[in-house]
């Protein structure tokens, strides 16, 4: 289809090339430089969507990111994206777009029945109607969501790449219009590191759309080009196009979303990200975010063909489009005349200019008069007609009060309406930064007031309107920001600007409609279908806070966050309440400024990069030998090693038995290890562990419990004394970093007098545990400088020497109750030593065992695992480990809490063992234990199962549990209610195997 509505010349489009695209299946063409919106308009298409609630036909309202109506489903397959503003989509060849929220078609939408029913579904309708019966909501909601809602999300994974970038600068400029470019020039010339970001494809802002403005006696766009060229040539300046500053956070930290290749569609190079999320830390910020034109609120002001006046000007002069043949302008200020004149000069018929002011006498109205345009002063549009496109407006003379019409209304045929209610400074980012807004009564706008971060607003976002003022404020703000950041400079000289004089608007909030308000459809929020009547209804129903009105009516919500509607809504609410606008206040501006894709927020934190996977130095061997792995925090540990045909149960049983009858080998490298060094090292340990450390001999090992200051068990492990002033502490795998940090904290803040240094050596060593009656023989086979005899190398001691030819620290300790040695070698030698042990262990049928077998082995012995038997609420005594708490030490971390009334009371949960009646029955971990099982909850619960396994050594199931007053219950029979049955259990001591502990010492 040819571009029937393209002006013969003009616009910043490349007419030498044509791009083909489809909208709702119809093929159209446009040019490079077009947005989807401008290309549709150039093809005569105004109807682009159906509204959210009433399914009313909607057209393109704006030319920018504030667009509430023209929300498009862009692209196909897993690249499809809903709710994209047609005004921001740059055209590329082959672009595929579709309208949303219509069925079966945009022209004929069944949902439009809602529009006919609209008097029945006012604000709060859903709240009021779908309340009963309460459970019915589950059904209603599904139906309502299908009716409402916008586009649809893709089904599969996103095929594109998204990147992050951190950046720092002296001056960040948000917005690349007149003020932003001027600020960047001033700061850049001063030598400051500058980042300037603009959401559009081209820098320049509104200067790209104003054909009647000259800077230094040349068209404004020439100055834009010169400025951009100069900035691009500065090494200290980063120019970011297609980049939205979407969030302004504390400490001048801003989020920018750069659309790197969105505009290329399928032609984007594969290696480039689709979008990039910038996190910028700026010393100074200049906000140059411009202003957003305010719609006028009048009867049926939402029909396709009704647009904001300056946006219309943009389609004509920036995009070279002819949006219609017969234009009616409705305005409360002179910039409406600017649009009328631009249209007139472009050959578009201007049927009428309707001005709500009693008199329009500025230079622009005079030019319009001189051009012979028909002007209706003191008039307002009271209704419009046209089904899928506006085809006439009806107007009437305003009474002096402005709130009613005098005399009869009359109609004017048209196919295009431009409305201008003045300009709202775009204060979103300023407000996000915590800045306070001031109300300027003369034109009814909120302007930046006090700010709380190092920032300054410049240009239209600061409430000035002319290009000359925007440039002047931009230069001043950029120069000042650079100076504050430490770059002395002189503000650039003012530029001579020729532009039409366009003073501020006279507020005009609601044109009295021809029909009664409730049926007049005077839309305030186009995206959420909120009318003036809805707002007044909310006030009548008792909502006074603007935040409540927002939530009740949904005004200001949605993807546009009320960019075009908020101030109008506020004015109507405050007028209805009879209050001043500043007294009513504004709703909160929150990030993101415009919708930001989840892809950009996720960045590359997906797939293998989602979280680090930590592997031990011996991991490759485990993998090569068929190990199954389990995640332990970020660590991946060997879980069990199934042989062909074995399931997990069989493999674990075999591993558990081998560790008690022959020799098992375990990779324990993930245990935390901390070197503790200094003359006060023993005293330090004495304070952080519950037991006594001062007299531990060199070369000896001791088990220790670490408590929180609340007296609850936080960590445990074995620490060995390497020398008079040197200990090697071990921690649990999961707590390694936490323990290190908290110990360092104690040293730095609580006991600075202690001469102790800590160094984490978790990853310096590979730790290999060999375990079982044959482990001594195995160790002896691989060392010639360590005497492995029971007398020479007793339980709980350390020997240093060589194992498999490399230096090793061997500690005789046991987490299984068997004879066991822990061999520590440098991490880089871990795999070789493991392989040497496997080889030397072949005659003993050495069996690698994983974490699951380790858990069974320690549970057979009733050894706790911190985080499994403990949950931050267990004292040593609760665990039956009072033996590990010194009664004589003056103090240790947590000691005081152990005498609190709650920690010494009767009836605390205590660790016990459980044996099921049926030895084959394995309890579920987490299952609750009760005295008497009732038919259904609630039942008085005694506690829960913390660990439960099948023990092949005992040939029956075993479990650990924490029960209220548990030790007094030993010998009793209790119940574990499950969904399908009740399991009877007998309470026992928590040690099931070798209760005297003879084997580890053998």
């Amino acid at each position, binding site marked *: 289809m040819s571009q029937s509505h393209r002006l013969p010349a003009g616009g910043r489009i490349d007419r030498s090339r044509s791009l083909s695209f489809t909208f709702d299946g119809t093929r159209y063409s446009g040019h490079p430089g077009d947005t989807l919106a401008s290309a549709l308009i150039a093809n005569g298409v105004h109807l682009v969507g159906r509204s959210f609630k009433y399914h009313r036909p909607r057209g393109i309202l704006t030319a920018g990111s504030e667009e509430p109506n023209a929300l498009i489903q862009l692209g196909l397959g897993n690249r499809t994206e809903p709710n994209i503003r047609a005004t921001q989509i740059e055209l590329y060849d082959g672009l595929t777009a579709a309208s949303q929220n219509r069925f079966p078609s945009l022209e004929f939408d069944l949902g439009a029945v809602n529009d006919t029913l609209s008097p029945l579904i006012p604000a709060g309708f859903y709240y009021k109607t779908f309340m009963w019966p309460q459970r019915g909501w589950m059904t209603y909601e599904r139906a309502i969501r299908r009716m409402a809602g916008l586009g649809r999300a893709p089904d599969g994974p996103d095929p594109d790449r998204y990147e992050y970038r951190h950046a720092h600068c002296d001056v960040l400029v948000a917005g690349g219009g007149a003020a932003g470019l001027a600020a960047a020039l001033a700061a850049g010339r001063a030598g400051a590191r500058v980042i300037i970001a603009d959401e559009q494809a081209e820098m320049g802002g509104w200067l790209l759309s104003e054909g009647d403005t000259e800077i230094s006696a040349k068209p404004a766009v020439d100055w834009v080009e010169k400025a951009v060229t100069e900035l691009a040539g500065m090494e200290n300046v980063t120019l970011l196009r297609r980049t939205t500053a979407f969030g302004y956070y504390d400490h001048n930290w801003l989020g920018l979303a750069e659309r790197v290749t969105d505009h290329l569609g399928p032609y984007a190079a594969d290696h*480039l990200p689709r979008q990039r999320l910038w996190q910028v830390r700026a010393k100074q910020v200049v906000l140059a975010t411009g202003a957003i034109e305010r719609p006028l609120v009048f009867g049926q002001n939402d029909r396709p063909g009704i647009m904001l006046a300056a946006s219309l000007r943009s389609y004509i002069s920036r995009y070279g489009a002819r949006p219609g043949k017969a234009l009616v302008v409705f305005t409360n200020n002179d910039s409406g005349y600017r649009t009328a004149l631009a249209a007139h000069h472009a050959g578009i018929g201007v049927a009428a200019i309707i001005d709500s002011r009693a008199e329009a006498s500025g230079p622009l109205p005079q030019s319009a008069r001189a051009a012979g345009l028909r002007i209706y002063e003191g008039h307002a549009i009271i209704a419009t007609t046209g089904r899928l496109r506006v085809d006439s407006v009806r107007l009437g003379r305003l009474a002096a009060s402005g709130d009613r019409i005098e005399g009869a209304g009359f109609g004017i045929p048209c196919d295009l309406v431009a409305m201008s209610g003045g300009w709202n400074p775009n204060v979103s980012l300023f407000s996000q930064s915590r800045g306070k807004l001031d109300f300027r009564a003369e034109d009814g706008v909120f302007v930046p007031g006090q700010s709380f971060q190092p920032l300054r607003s410049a240009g239209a976002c600061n409430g000035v309107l002319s290009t000359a003022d925007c440039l002047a404020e931009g230069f001043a703000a950029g120069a000042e920001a650079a100076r504050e950041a430490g770059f002395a400079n002189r503000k650039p000289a003012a530029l001579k600007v020729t532009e039409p004089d366009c003073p501020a608007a006279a507020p005009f909030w609601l044109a009295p409609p021809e029909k009664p308000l409730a049926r007049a459809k005077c839309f305030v929020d186009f995206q959420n279908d909120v009318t003036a009547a809805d707002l007044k209804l909310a006030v009548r129903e008792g909502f006074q806070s603007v935040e409540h009105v927002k939530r009740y009516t949904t005004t200001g919500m949605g993807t546009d966050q009320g960019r075009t509607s908020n101030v109008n809504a506020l004015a109507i609410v405050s007028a209805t309440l009879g209050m001043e606008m500043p007294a009513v206040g504004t709703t909160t501006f929150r990030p993101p400024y415009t919708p930001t894709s989840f892809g950009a927020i996720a960045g590359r934190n997906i797939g293998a990069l989602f979280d*680090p996977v*930590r592997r031990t130095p011996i991991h490759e061997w485990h993998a090569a030998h068929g190990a199954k792995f389990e995640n332990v925090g970020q660590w991946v540990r060997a879980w069990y090693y199934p042989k062909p045909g074995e399931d997990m149960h069989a493999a674990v049983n075999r591993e558990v038995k081998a560790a008690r009858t022959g020799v098992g080998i375990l990779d324990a490298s993930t245990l935390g290890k901390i070197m503790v*060094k200094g003359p006060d090292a023993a005293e330090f340990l004495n304070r952080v562990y519950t037991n006594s450390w001062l007299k531990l001999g060199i070369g000896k090992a001791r088990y220790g419990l670490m408590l929180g200051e609340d007296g609850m068990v936080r960590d445990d492990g074995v620490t060995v004394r390497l020398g008079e002033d040197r200990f090697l502490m071990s921690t649990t795998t999961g707590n390694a970093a936490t323990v290190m940090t908290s110990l360092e904290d104690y040293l730095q803040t609580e006991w600075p007098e202690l001469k102790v240094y800590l*160094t984490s050596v*978790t*990853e310096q*060593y590979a730790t290999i545990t060999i375990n079982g009656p044959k482990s001594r023989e195995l160790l002896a086979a691989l060392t010639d400088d360590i005497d492995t005899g029971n007398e020479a190398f007793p339980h709980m001691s350390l020997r240093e020497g060589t194992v498999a030819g490399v230096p090793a620290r061997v500690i005789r300790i046991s987490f299984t109750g068997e004879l066991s040695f822990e061999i520590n070698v440098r991490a*880089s030698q871990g795999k070789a030593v493991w392989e040497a042990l496997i080889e030397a262990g072949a005659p003993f049928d050495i069996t690698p065992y994983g974490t699951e077998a380790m858990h069974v082995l320690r549970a057979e012995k009733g050894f706790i695992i911190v985080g499994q038997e403990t949950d931050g609420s267990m004292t040593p005594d609760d665990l039956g480990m009072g033996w590990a708490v010194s009664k004589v030490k003056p103090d240790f971390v947590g000691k005081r809490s152990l005498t609190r009334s709650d920690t010494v009371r009767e009836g605390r949960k205590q660790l016990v063992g459980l044996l099921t009646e049926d030895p084959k029955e394995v309890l579920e971990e987490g299952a609750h234990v009760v005295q008497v099982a009732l038919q259904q909850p609630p039942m008085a619960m005694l506690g829960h199962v913390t660990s439960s396994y099948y023990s092949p050594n005992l040939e029956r199931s075993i479990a650990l549990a924490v029960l209220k007053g548990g030790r007094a219950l030993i010998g009793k029979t209790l119940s574990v209610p499950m969904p399908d049955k009740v399991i009877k259990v007998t309470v026992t001591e928590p040690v099931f195997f070798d209760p005297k502990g003879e084997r580890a010492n053998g």
Partner: protein
Amino acid sequence: MADTMQDIPVAIAALPENGKLILRADAQNADIRAAIAGVLTAPLPVEPLTSMAGDKATALWLGPDEWLLLCAEADRAGLQQALEANLADLHASVVDVSDAYSGFAVTGPKAAELLSKGCAIDLHPVAFAEGKVVRSLLAKADITLLRTAADFQLYVLRSFAAYTRLWLDDAAREYRG
């Protein structure tokens, strides 16, 4: 060769195994400073975020009482022994962490930009000159980052090396189009 370093936007390489010691001592103490300087043949850097390259080792400031000493693997044991001997009567700690950390070098004109995808520190030469050292995060890995005349060197815990390499290579994709 035509393919000079300048032509490659960014290159990533694992650093060869070297000796790494964590030295902890009170730098306010002149005896300690002298004992250490005697071994390193260079003063210990006491300015935060700085490093000092000596004949025997490069010392990286990690905290007011903590340094990472980098040396040739062959010199490691000797350096540790010499330090421990010189510091024998003083309160200090010298711990071998050579195997605990893995190092990477990132070179080329886009090196800083690549790192800035995951590191929030300002890496511009104005703010991060040669010799500067920081401990920070690269994506989800703790790093010790040093800028040398030739490159950025970063050290991560051994178990984070695979993740870090994966991340660096992935981040470099943009420059290898």
